[in-house]
């Protein structure tokens, strides 16, 4: 599949701290890809490298088929960017701001601009510095969507927005859905915010890519398993390598099955846990999955 954004073993240092460690991932064409991870995981660094606002210390990021370090005005006119707390010309009114943006983009679509302004109910005569946080983000989104970018980059777009404004913001950005299609990459530290919106997930932790996979396959292959062991079960048996992060408490053993196959699971479970009732097998939410995988990673690293 094509991708509009690809990272190939990209690292970035700031002094002694390593913000990205040999990170490889891609944003499939037409997808909404979420870059997830706690604060300081390297999400913003990755997005800033993608826009040539930062250079990688090593490795290569390819954006719209070009090396990110060589992005020029022609490529940047095909990319939209909105970041939490980004600098805007605060002395301008909303009308002035959009009139100022319009001539910068040959593909500016005035009908789409009108439609979005109506949806967002943006007051044209209000100065940007007097807008609420949500309205500011909406004004920035109008300026980034109206030229119909092929790639939309959103850095923590929902941070500090109330749920109603967040929903309006999402509806607005999906105005570009359909038609020729566009790709979105957005970062968030709050997985629940984006778990239904994103169809591709890149999980980052301490600058490393933990996962780079479609949401659907992630949810399909992971299961949370609970086994009730008999009173005299003795030592825990060795688990297959795809069953990770075991934790036991009393007679209950919990673990994550990372390549679940409903047909084969029962047989394997009966072999590993002879004499036990059938285990309780449940799907993970993305949030639970992330927490489990980060914990398992720490255990692997002996932390």
């Amino acid at each position, binding site marked *: 599949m094509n991708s509009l954004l690809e990272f190939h073993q990209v690292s970035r240092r700031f002094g002694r701290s390593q913000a990205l460690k040999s990170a490889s991932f891609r944003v499939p064409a*037409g997808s*909404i890809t979420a870059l997830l991870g706690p604060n300081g995981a390297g999400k913003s660094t990755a997005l800033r490298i993608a826009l040539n606002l930062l250079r990688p210390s090593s490795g290569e990021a390819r954006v719209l088929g070009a090396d990110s370090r060589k992005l020029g005005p022609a490529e940047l006119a095909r990319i939209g960017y909105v970041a939490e707390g980004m600098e805007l010309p605060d002395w301008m009114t909303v009308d002035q701001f959009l009139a100022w943006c319009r001539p910068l983009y040959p593909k500016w679509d005035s009908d789409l601009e009108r439609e979005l302004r109506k949806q967002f109910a943006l007051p044209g005569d209000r100065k940007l510095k007097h807008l609420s946080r949500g309205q500011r983000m909406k004004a920035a989104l109008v300026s980034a969507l109206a030229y119909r970018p092929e790639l939309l980059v959103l850095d923590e777009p929902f941070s500090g927005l109330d749920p109603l404004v967040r*929903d309006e913001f*999402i509806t607005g950005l*999906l105005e570009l859905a359909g038609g020729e299609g566009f790709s979105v990459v957005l970062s968030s530290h709050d997985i629940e915010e984006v778990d239904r919106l994103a169809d591709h997930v890149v999980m980052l932790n301490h600058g490393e890519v933990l996962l780079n996979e479609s949401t659907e396959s992630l949810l399909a292959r992971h299961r949370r398993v609970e086994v009730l062991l008999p009173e005299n079960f003795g030592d825990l048996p060795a688990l297959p390598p795809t069953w990770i992060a075991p934790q036991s408490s009393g007679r209950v053993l919990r673990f994550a099955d990372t390549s679940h196959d409903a047909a084969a699971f029962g047989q394997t479970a009966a072999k590993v846990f002879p004499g036990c*009732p*059938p285990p309780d097998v449940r799907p993970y*939410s993305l949030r639970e999955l992330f927490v489990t995988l980060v914990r398992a990673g720490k255990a692997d690293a002996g932390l």
Partner: protein
Amino acid sequence: MLPFRFHLLDGVPVSDQLVKAVQRAVLTGEMAPGEKFPSVRVLAQELKISPTTAHKAVLELRDAGFLATRPGAGMVVVKPAGSSREQLISQLAPACRDLIRQAGLLGLTAEETQKALRRALSED
């Protein structure tokens, strides 16, 4: 507003849930044959999901005979061939599997499980 009922659950792929919800709506008559089906953009906006996911569900529904392309009108609802009661019964399969699993965790026999189901049915 979408013309069918839909409540997203955690942990199950969104496109699977969307397909199931539309199938149920067609089989129960909540959506009538010939009715216009929302576009991918409207589905994505209303459900706050990725257009790719919405597109995938629409294609699946078309392949399963629940939607058809009408030139100029986008997608319309079709009633698929075959017994709709049977298809409704098969929609209940996941809930039945869940019931059986719960019964297994409690150590109940098949007879006891059926007894619990009959009891719940008579209370309803």
